[in-house]
């Protein structure tokens, strides 16, 4: 690795730490500003019980002290216990959820990248032909349709009417539909992205030169056009993978998948402060790291890019 790249990576990692600290700080104080608390329910608990619980989770201390304590614990990788899921550690809840969400997400992201880039290239090469139009119409539909519509549709079709796939994520084969539901949107998006950027590239002079020099068509597309057309795709893919890995509330709910997305949303509804913090930090770290990875990928795709 050259020294320029090295110093760039170090700078970015330092920036990452600052970004995550900012996320922690903002989340911590904003979260405490939302009305409601973890111990409120339709049936109120007695003041004595409330006091014991506040003391147990350190919520009886002034907010700033709570914040300092949280940071101290975090430096020792202690995310604390979940308040709502009594007796469970935040780290365990996150890792357990991520095991499932990560698995589905990785498959969905893989499918989206492979299919998206392929369809996009095919559409660009066959511009304005039937195949291009078909791809464009269907991707427009998938980009526009919200995931709860697609999810519910898949559930009804495959699990209720035809009954060929299980409706519960934990059953064998139960992850097929969630993966499809998760992959549809990014596949469609990447297809459109690849197509437009590929069309741009195909009009460049060097493609014409390559063509004139008699480079084979396949080689020209793969080696010259696609590589350059991938830059916007990489920009999109970094955060997309981060989001998809941390789970989708809608897809997880519809297919009863025990993933991280549900925990993230439920933690906010429940005002489960340690779990809100844990899931937010986890998501933020992943997004920032994936952004870094996609920035480094530029260099791989286009060596001319200079990090200084």
């Amino acid at each position, binding site marked *: 690795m050259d020294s320029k790249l090295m110093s760039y990576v170090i700078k970015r990692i330092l920036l990452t730490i600052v970004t995550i600290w900012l996320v922690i700080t903002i989340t911590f104080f904003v979260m405490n500003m939302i009305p*409601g608390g973890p111990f409120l329910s339709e*049936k109120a608990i007695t003041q004595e019980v409330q006091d014991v619980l506040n003391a147990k989770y350190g919520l009886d201390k002034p907010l700033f002290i709570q914040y300092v304590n949280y940071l101290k614990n975090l430096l020792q990788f202690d995310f604390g216990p979940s308040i709502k899921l*009594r007796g469970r550690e935040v780290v365990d809840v996150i890792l357990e959820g991520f095991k499932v969400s990560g698995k589905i997400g990785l498959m969905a992201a893989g499918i989206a990248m492979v299919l998206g880039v392929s369809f996009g290239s095919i559409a660009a090469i066959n511009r304005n032909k039937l195949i291009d139009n078909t791809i464009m119409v269907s991707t427009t539909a998938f980009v526009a349709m919200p995931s709860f519509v697609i999810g519910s549709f898949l559930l*009804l079709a495959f699990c209720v009417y035809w*009954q060929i796939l299980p409706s*519960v994520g934990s059953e064998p084969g139960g992850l097929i539909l969630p993966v499809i539901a998760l992959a549809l949107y990014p596949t469609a998006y990447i297809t459109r992205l690849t197509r437009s950027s590929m069309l741009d590239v195909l009009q460049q002079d060097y493609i014409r030169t390559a063509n004139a020099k008699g480079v084979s068509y396949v080689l020209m597309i793969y080696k010259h056009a696609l590589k350059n057309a991938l830059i916007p795709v990489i920009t999109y893919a970094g955060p997309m993978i981060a989001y998809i890995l941390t789970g989708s509330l809608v897809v997880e*709910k519809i297919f009863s998948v*025990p993933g991280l997305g549900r925990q993230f949303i439920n933690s906010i509804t429940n005002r489960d402060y340690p779990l809100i913090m844990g899931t937010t930090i986890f998501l933020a770290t992943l997004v920032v790291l994936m952004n870094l990875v996609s920035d480094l990928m530029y260099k791989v795709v286009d060596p001319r890019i200079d990090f200084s």
Partner: protein
Amino acid sequence: MKKIALFIVSLALVFAFVGCSKAEAVKTVDFSEATVYSMDLTDIPGYDDVVTNGTWAETYDVIIGYAKLETDAAKRTALYHAAEDLLMSTGTTVPIYYYTDIYMASTDLEGFFSTPTGSKFFKYTTLDGSGDALSVCLSSEPSTIDPALNSAVDGATMILHAFSGLIGYNSDGELVADLATAIPTPTENTDGTATYVFELRSDLKWSDGSDLTAADFEYAWKRAAADETAADYGYLFAVIDGYGTEDGLNVTATDDTHLSVTLTVDVPYFLELMAFPTFMPVQEAAITADADGWATDPTSYITNGAYYVSEWDHNSKIVLTKNDNYWNADSITMDEITFYLSDDDTAILAGFLNGTYDFIDSVPNDEIASLQTEHPAEFFIAGQLGTYYITFNNNTDFLPSDISEGMTTNEILEANQEIRLALSLLLDRNYVVEEIGQAGQLPAASFVAMGITNADGSQFYESAGSSTTYIGFYDTAASAYAQNCATAVDILSKYFDYNERTKKFTNFPSFDYLYNTSTGHQAIGEYIQAAFAQYGITITLVNQEWGTFLETRKNGDYVLARNGWLADFNDPISFLDMWVSSSGNNDAQLGVPVAE
């Protein structure tokens, strides 16, 4: 000139608008010191004094306090009715309907029953004649299945399969002795307390094979009642003598098989409590080993009931397997129950329709009507001890300032009570249950739910109110609705201007209706809005996310809000206790001074 005229007109409009919105804004008045109640309960020593000199809250506290200590069951029932009369006379709680419990069960499922508090029992079931395995979906991951800490209905069902108390339910759903050899008769002590001595069966075992003794009950109950445990339902132990004192609960294991329990006063629901999750025994060794986490892992979750947890895939499923160490294991017909965990009604219904689940406890609200017609044999509506109601903030003053001028606080209070009662008459509860609820709910005319019984076993709600022609505090018959509205208009006309031509009130202040985000609650809110609008009364619907809603309602930052209550056991006190001044559920702010 034109500009000046325009300016004057707009100025006039602005003032008119400001004046108008001022007149429309409801005020807040501190009613906590007002007294207006008179009832004939002269039997209670010192009662007259409270009624004459005390506040509403003091009066109510006294009635409930006496009721709790009353040893005579008939007198206690009378006191409960007096308390409900007092509560209903304030007009703050407006019952809409009595809850029902909807579930869907496969036609192959036999031997299932549920209790009125919503616990489901699958122990004695067979599926298509076989007792191999059953799959059910009740809800998402329970917050806890520690018997002491649980306060949720789904958690209770799982706990009641894994644990077994002194008393339990037989296959007919009746209360019978479980770990106890028989249901004991209490001995009444000279100080009014009552002592039960339970004799435990010999050779009782935990699921890990170790011995279970009376001492385990003493430990479990004292743990659940202790402040440090911070159990939501710790207050249920208040029926036991010594609760909240330094000496602790008056519960003693006299030897391995005898447990002596002294109650402050013998209450009929004590036996029911013995079968309630909070009163299940827990193993001290398991809890000492991991006080926080013991109930989250199958290996440390030691049970004593019909089942033990053999597998727990968090947020996905909990598998219960028959516990051969349970004394009555021979009577358990189902070998394995899988509780699938899901929180999406549509997904749950899909799982039922494709045969993944044999039993589900919730269905999407929009599907109720079609499911009833398309799956009549699988769709069930059971009774439930609960009331859906709306709450007025007691500190709200609806009176226009020109009318309330010169009135005393008590007169203003009385007027507002009348106004609230009149508003509650404008609601057609039959419309709500038939068009919105659609699940066999019954229109409610009293606060204590249908299903809760008097001392003699008759229905409490049937003897509520003082009318001889209808049940409850107003007539909910569809035919009576027009008359109810006419009565309401008469009452409201005393305080507000009524336009005979448009049949609308012209100066009733507009106010907000607060509910938590949900299509069902919204539909009811929209109905209330429409019903009031017919008489010129404008309400604005305000929906808030659950946590925010709870806080707003608890703090009394509202005028009218959605509310609901489910009983934990069959006794009117489980409803009436929530309005005493020390309760955290007094959302109507009865007797609560206005915050500065």
